[in-house]
């Protein structure tokens, strides 16, 4: 147990250290790319899992799922994701249009303190910002003197959560995640002369923090002998993030030219709704579907925070409601051992279609893709591996927009052991 904890602590420190190297041009807007993947067992199902319950895995898609965990077990999961992106668009330089990175994505723990109560804590990404742009800058007061602006953004918002769910009447589970969102976005604008020699750099450090609550419900039962069903729903209320922006303007020799700390302000996160269904046949074949909605359109983020978070405040760009549908199919290989069904492996496929919260140049940025997954539960060790591949297309390649074609490879490793009791292990 102590060793496991030390591994977890080590993993957390790696999560803090990891550096993203992929470019996400759309992350220049708002608080960056909002993470809609969970890097868990549902990754191969295109993250379709609002109505997924698992006794072995932590399904953080819906806080109501933790009550499904096996009694007396302790579960820990870590995950990483490798992503290869190919960029296209009229403005993209075709000589250099690919990037690749591997990032550490989550560390979560779950336990079942009592028969009906499941609980989980974890650290997962909430949003991330990662972009590099060059843009000509007209010098005011001149006729055509041009400098270069180099835009660079990095950082992101992390979510550390404590989720609890409780099962009522054997058919209903209610859950809540109490999260703390924290992180900072580092946005840098370097003005360069036409030979790209730095003239001045402006550094905005945007710190975002606050508590965040999201709720989940799952209703489940059987239809006949062969069919199991789960209906799931999630909800998060509109909630503010506290924003603290510090700004420094530096000379090329890094000496300070100007610094400013803006008055505290808020950035509102929208109301989120999700609904899902899953149908399982013979404990082996599961079909799932999710719908998610975020009411960004009614979030009123105004003032300087908005213009600073959106450095392109004079551009044709707006935030609007986002939605996503996803479906997945899973085939589980199970064997009956001592009258208990034990899963050895599973295969998954999924598809998703989403309209993001960004509307750029009059076009809502779409993200469409599919996933395939395979999972293996180790026979000799308390480990289980979930591997999935993803291929998707985000945005369109037009004169103003950029299209990202991406391939993702997610590996989630699960470790479980008895919690408190030292009973016999069943695999």
């Amino acid at each position: 147990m102590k060793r496991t904890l030390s591994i977890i602590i080590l993993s957390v420190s790696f999560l803090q250290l990891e550096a993203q190297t992929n470019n996400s041009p759309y992350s220049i807007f708002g608080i960056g790319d909002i993470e809609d993947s969970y890097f868990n067992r549902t990754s191969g199902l295109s993250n379709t899992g609002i109505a997924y319950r698992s006794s072995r895995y932590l399904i953080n898609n819906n806080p109501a799922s933790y009550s499904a965990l096996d009694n007396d077990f302790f579960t820990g999961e870590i995950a990483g994701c490798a992503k290869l992106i190919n960029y296209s668009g009229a403005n993209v330089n075709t000589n250099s249009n690919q990037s690749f990175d591997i990032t550490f994505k989550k560390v979560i723990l779950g336990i079942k303190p009592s028969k009906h109560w499941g609980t989980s804590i974890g650290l997962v990404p909430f949003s991330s910002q990662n972009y590099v742009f060059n843009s000509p800058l007209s010098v005011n007061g001149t006729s055509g003197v041009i400098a270069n602006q180099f835009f660079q953004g990095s950082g992101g918002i992390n979510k550390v959560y404590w989720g609890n769910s409780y099962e009522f009447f054997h058919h209903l589970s209610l859950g809540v995640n109490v999260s703390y969102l924290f992180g900072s976005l580092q946005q840098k604008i370097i003005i360069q002369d036409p030979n790209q020699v730095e003239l001045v750099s402006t550094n905005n450090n945007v710190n975002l923090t606050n508590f965040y609550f999201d709720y989940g419900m799952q209703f489940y039962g059987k239809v006949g002998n062969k069919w199991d069903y789960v209906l799931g729903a999630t909800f998060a209320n509109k909630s503010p993030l506290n924003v603290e922006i510090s700004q420094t303007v530096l000379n090329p020799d890094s000496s300070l030219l100007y610094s400013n700390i803006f008055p505290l302000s808020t950035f509102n996160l929208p109301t989120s709704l999700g609904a899902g269904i899953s149908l399982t046949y013979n404990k082996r074949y599961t079909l799932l579907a999710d719908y998610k909605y975020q009411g960004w359109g009614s979030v009123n983020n105004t003032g300087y925070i908005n213009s600073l978070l959106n450095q392109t405040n004079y551009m044709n760009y707006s935030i609007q409601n986002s939605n996503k549908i996803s479906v997945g199919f899973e085939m589980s290989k199970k064997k009956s051992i001592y009258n208990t069904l034990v899963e050895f492996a599973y295969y998954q496929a999924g598809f998703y279609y989403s309209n993001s919260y960004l509307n750029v140049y009059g076009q809502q940025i779409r993200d469409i893709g599919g996933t395939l997954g395979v999972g293996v539960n180790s026979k000799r060790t308390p480990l289980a591996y979930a591997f999935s591949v993803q291929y998707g297309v985000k945005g369109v390649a037009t004169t103003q927009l950029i299209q990202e074609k991406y391939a993702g490879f997610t590996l989630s490793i699960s470790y479980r052991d008895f919690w408190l009791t030292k009973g016999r292990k069943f695999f």
Partner: protein
Amino acid sequence: MRMTEKNDLKRYQLGFLLPVVIMFFLAACQKPSIDFGASFVNNNSNSNNTSVIQIDTFTARLSTVLVDSFPTAATGSMLLGYYHDNLFGSVTSSSFLQMGIPAGTSGINNQSVYDSLVLNMRINKSFFGDTTLQQRYYVSQLNEIIQYPYSTQYTYYNNSGFSYNASPLGFTDVTIYPTRGLTSQALDDTVKIDLPDTLGQHLFEMIQNVSDTVKNLNSFIAYFRGLTIYPDTTPGHSGTLYGFKDTVTIRLFYHQPGIYTTYNFIDIKFNNKSNQFNRITADRSGTPLAALTTAQASRPNPLIHAEAPSSQMNNAMYVQSATGVQGKITFPSLSTVPALPGYLGILRAQLILKPIVGTFSPELALPPQLILSQTDVNNQLGSPITSTGGVEYGSLYIDYNGAGITTYSYDITNYIKQQVTLGGNNTDGLLISLPSPANATSFDRAVFGDATNKNYNITLNLYYISLPH
């Protein structure tokens, strides 16, 4: 059994941890630089972002400073001539120098016969004025030895001088073709002045007699003292200033009679570079620069170089270092810069000076280099303006035919950065002069119009960093 369990633990712990470590190292890759173009980002300066703003509306206040005296010794060049310039007045330059003892005298004996004595000086191809005019140069022997009049004086100045014999030893009329390095005397680049035989004969006899006077340098200087070479200033004999090398030689020709007469010479070479200097005088009456002479005469503090504003000098500023004339630019309103909207700091400051078209020509040439030096109300020459590339020389772009595109341009960023912080009414300034050694050897000059002059063309381009705050 226990051992096996422990080993199992280690193995799966490794299986858990290893991917993390691998991911960590792979994640440390360099972010690729992908050029996404500009469509996502703002390319104007009107946003809340830091921007660069240029203004060029700062008025430069121009004046001209007259330096009382400046060193002209040991420049390696003799400036000789007289010319009249409608803008700068009449300029005369003569040179003083000292001669050493005769060398190679061992060939002279009692049978040797004196032939002639000449003074040779070689042009250095620099000139100012009309090169078609014939020049007359005189050479006179000094009445005094060239030496510092005070123990605190260590050089000679443009206004230094020693009395000389009013009746010259000799003179020559010559036309010089400086760019070709030739003269009308057809002795390559040498200008020859015949010296009187009485002097030659006397020197020759002393050499024949192995007199101490021609063997001991101090004795010879006491005897011969020195020479001054000066131009005839009358029309027909003048109109141009030429530069000569300081290696003046007096050549004494003699022959050795016999069955085969041999002809030979000995040289008396110039002595001590530090004792050669040019005396430069200017008569500014009747020109715009007369105001400077007035200012010099009426100034309350003789330690402060005289200064006359452009308003008293045909609305222009003048530069001719070899006559002590320096331009001065001040920007009285620099202290208002920090109050500009959103001002954070100076990014770049560029000073562009365009000489008034028509005031320069290949004969009345612009200085190829002009330096800016810091100064204040006392008009003393301070340290020159530098940028990252060293001293700024103005990188002259010259066009004799074009209207107004001849320019000197300077990066004065460091200077302006320092000046904007001073506040108040800025009285510091920049003196414009030729760099050394040209400041004492070149008569190149420039004229710049002030703000009321229709040919005003002095621009301070100030690029500053702005951030609305």
